[in-house]
């Protein structure tokens, strides 16, 4: 009989080991899935995990890796801090859109002035502020009226999408765009562009910001009183109150921080890889970042790795769709398996498996 026995303390070894096991289990189960679809499982797995980094066309994919991982990591870092405190911001997608809109609006307001030293920093500030304010709506509603931040932040995503559409079709539309929807291309506006810092690397300011956020979050959570309060509130809200933590301030801090980081990610995206405000500007980074945050077990370094891994499955998945003709649903199922196995193996961190015989009589 197999029994689970609670460990007296969570196992550190297993906390590090389970993500690795989960990735391997996903490869096996995914391979079986692809085989059942009539594709060579080994080739499929190789196309997803190996080719984008070391394959023949890796020079193209490698840049994509950081472009995709950057926003995921930046948003996930912000979300993870709230999640550690038990504050569930599900609306990062909306904060991402509003950050992009605010940043782009500031940049376009200066068009065609030539002053990068002024305009780009202002856009960065506006992006962060836009996301921050959008996240303050669920924050203030929660602290004032005790509303549920999950619902409010999620519903605000759809409001943000409407604002995005109205901007792309109306107030931010390119006046020289022959009536097509979409703003001017910020990449072609030197003072507002967030182009690659090293050609072909995919490294842009958003990726730099993501790396800074990782370090900042690590220090915050492990050394600073605020990080301690956040962890305490997540572990045991009553003990946090007893320790003198003000729950309202904590809620506003966590939502504000995650909103600002999501807004930043949006700004860097709109001024860089995306280039313009368009109706279909958002592609779900804000939601995928929730998965990244948990995949990285809400730990900054884990999130860094999880963001890269998630980006890899996206890029590899696209490559597999293109070269092997795998259906996109199979790729999505594959990504879902990753989260599923991670959560399943997570049990081993807190429990040990015992193969116990019946008690002898």
């Amino acid at each position, binding site marked *: 009989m197999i029994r689970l*026995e609670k*460990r*007296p*303390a*969570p196992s550190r070894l297993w906390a590090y080991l389970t993500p690795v096991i989960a990735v391997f289990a996903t490869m096996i189960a995914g391979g079986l899935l692809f085989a059942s679809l009539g594709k060579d499982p080994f080739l499929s797995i190789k196309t997803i995990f190996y080719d984008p980094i070391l394959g023949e066309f890796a020079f193209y994919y490698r840049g994509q890796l950081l472009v995709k991982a950057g926003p995921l990591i930046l948003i996930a870092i912000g979300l993870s801090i709230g999640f550690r405190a038990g504050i569930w911001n599900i609306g990062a997608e909306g904060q991402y859109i509003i950050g992009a809109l605010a940043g782009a609006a500031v940049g376009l307001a200066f068009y065609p002035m030539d002053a990068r030293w002024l305009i780009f920093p202002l856009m960065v500030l506006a992006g962060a502020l836009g996301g921050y304010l959008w996240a303050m709506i669920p924050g203030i509603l929660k602290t004032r009226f005790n509303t549920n931040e999950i619902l409010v932040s999620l519903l605000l995503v759809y409001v943000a999408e409407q604002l995005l559409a109205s901007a792309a079709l109306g107030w931010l539309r390119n006046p020289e765009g022959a009536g097509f929807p979409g703003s001017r291309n910020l990449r072609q506006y030197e003072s507002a562009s967030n182009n690659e810092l090293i050609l072909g690397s995919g490294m842009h300011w958003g990726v730099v910001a993501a790396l800074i956020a990782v370090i900042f979050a690590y220090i915050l959570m492990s*050394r*600073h*009183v*605020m990080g*301690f309060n956040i*962890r*305490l509130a997540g*572990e*045991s809200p*009553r*003990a*946090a*109150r*007893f*320790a*003198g933590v*003000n729950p309202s301030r904590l809620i506003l801090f966590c939502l504000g921080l995650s909103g600002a980081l999501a807004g930043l990610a949006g700004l860097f995206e709109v001024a860089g890889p995306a280039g313009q405000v368009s109706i279909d500007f958002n592609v779900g980074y804000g939601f995928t970042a929730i998965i990244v945050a948990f995949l990285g077990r809400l730990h900054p370094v884990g999130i860094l790795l999880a963001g890269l891994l998630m980006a890899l499955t996206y890029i590899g998945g696209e490559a597999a769709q293109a070269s092997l003709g795998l259906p996109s649903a199979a790729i999505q199922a594959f990504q879902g398996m990753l989260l599923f196995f991670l959560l399943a193996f997570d049990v081993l961190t807190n429990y*040990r498996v015992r193969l*116990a015989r019946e*008690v*002898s*009589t």
Partner: protein
Amino acid sequence: MTALLSLDGLTKAYPGVGANDDGSFAIKPGQVHALLGENGAGKSTLVKMVYGLVRPDSGTLTLQGTVFQPNSPQDARKAGIAMVFQHFSLFEALTVAENVALGMESPPAMRKLAERIAEVSTAYGLPLDPGRLVGDLSAGERQRVEIVRCLLQDPKLLIMDEPTSVLTPQEVSILFETLRKLQSEGTSILYISHKLEEIRTLCDEATVLRMGRVVGACDPRERSARDLAEMMVGARLATPTPKAHDKGPVALRLDGVSLASANPFGTSLKDIAFDVHEGEVLGVGGVAGNGQDELLALLSGEQTVARDLIQLNAQAIGHLGSDGRRALGVLAAPEERLGHAAAPNMSLIENAALTGRVRVSLTSRGFIDWAKTRGFAEAIIEGFDVRTPGPSNPARSLSGGNLQKFVVGREILQNPSVLVINQPTWGVDASAAAAIRQAILDLAAKGAAVIVISQDLDELMEISDRFAVLNEGRLSTPRPAAGLTVDEIGLMMGGAHDMQEAAT
């Protein structure tokens, strides 16, 4: 007479801690059998093995001559074993009858069940209205719900884990009548308690556990409480000795504070007024649920009131939160150790920072000095004999008594000028309890004002200079503790809450 239940060589090992090792004893039909032992001695584990919650690694249980292997509490209940836990598992928003029905495999129709509850509860002198919400019941009445729930199954063996910790003296004597009536009908009772006087009045036989082993059996009626305690601890006990000291000026004064409870089923405080002097221990008695948690929240700063309503050395502090009061020396140790006084999954180091960071100055410019915090945690562990493999272990890995020593030690080592403790020795073994009481007395002798909120009257009488009772959110005027009789105190606590004794 053959035994109803015999336990033979039951062993259960837990990783990291020794739990049970070769527990053997027998319970005879119609016997009230006491299980005595310090916290962590393995009483709970042993009982959980009988009740099917924990499977033994080896050893056998024999119930009425046949081997008994309960895989779950359902098995145990089918075999006629019922248990009343120390912590009630009741839903406050449901009625008595609904709560009872929840614990049954196939509950009868609600009206029939309500009749049965009324019938059984009056027969055993535990009157209950099946239609009332559990949230509106006192702790004593909630316990009756648990007991009646067990009695409906007609148990052959009733296990009771620390049943009297929430009762007034009068309620205790009524409970004992009920248990004696059950005993006279042939039901055996396994009675777990650390209150030795109770065991001496109630039980026919006692089995003493120490460090997971059965170390002795005796007839508790023939032994003194001190003998029993020393059997339990395996060493001679030191009685706390109050040091002679003079009462200083007023340290803390409350001027008629009323405060609505933050909890919908809590008790609001009404017009609380008292003062406590430097070097004095003020004992606050009363049955649980009469405003104890709220009083602690009021004093700790978890709930704030108007500025002038609370004064520390004539300085208004009512508006200050926990951190502000800590900085001035008003410290508190709440009753709920896991989840209020300490975060269960966090290490002892982190838990040391939980309250210590203000006064021990464990932070600099917003950053926590973990090396210094570890030092503080180690000082607590060493100074208060907290038994743990090390300060990196999570709080939940400690036994109740050890964690309580840690929590109390954490506050005392911060040199409080006023210390408020709710239930300092609840669920704590005799030697740890003695150590905690001694620490409280030593602290008062050094000039601190100490407020001890407790349901253990013996404890309050032992350490208090003055004594007051919290009843339905009101605090009686403090009276000198010396010379108060248990009967007087019981009446101050509101008597027996309209209970009647079991008809025998």
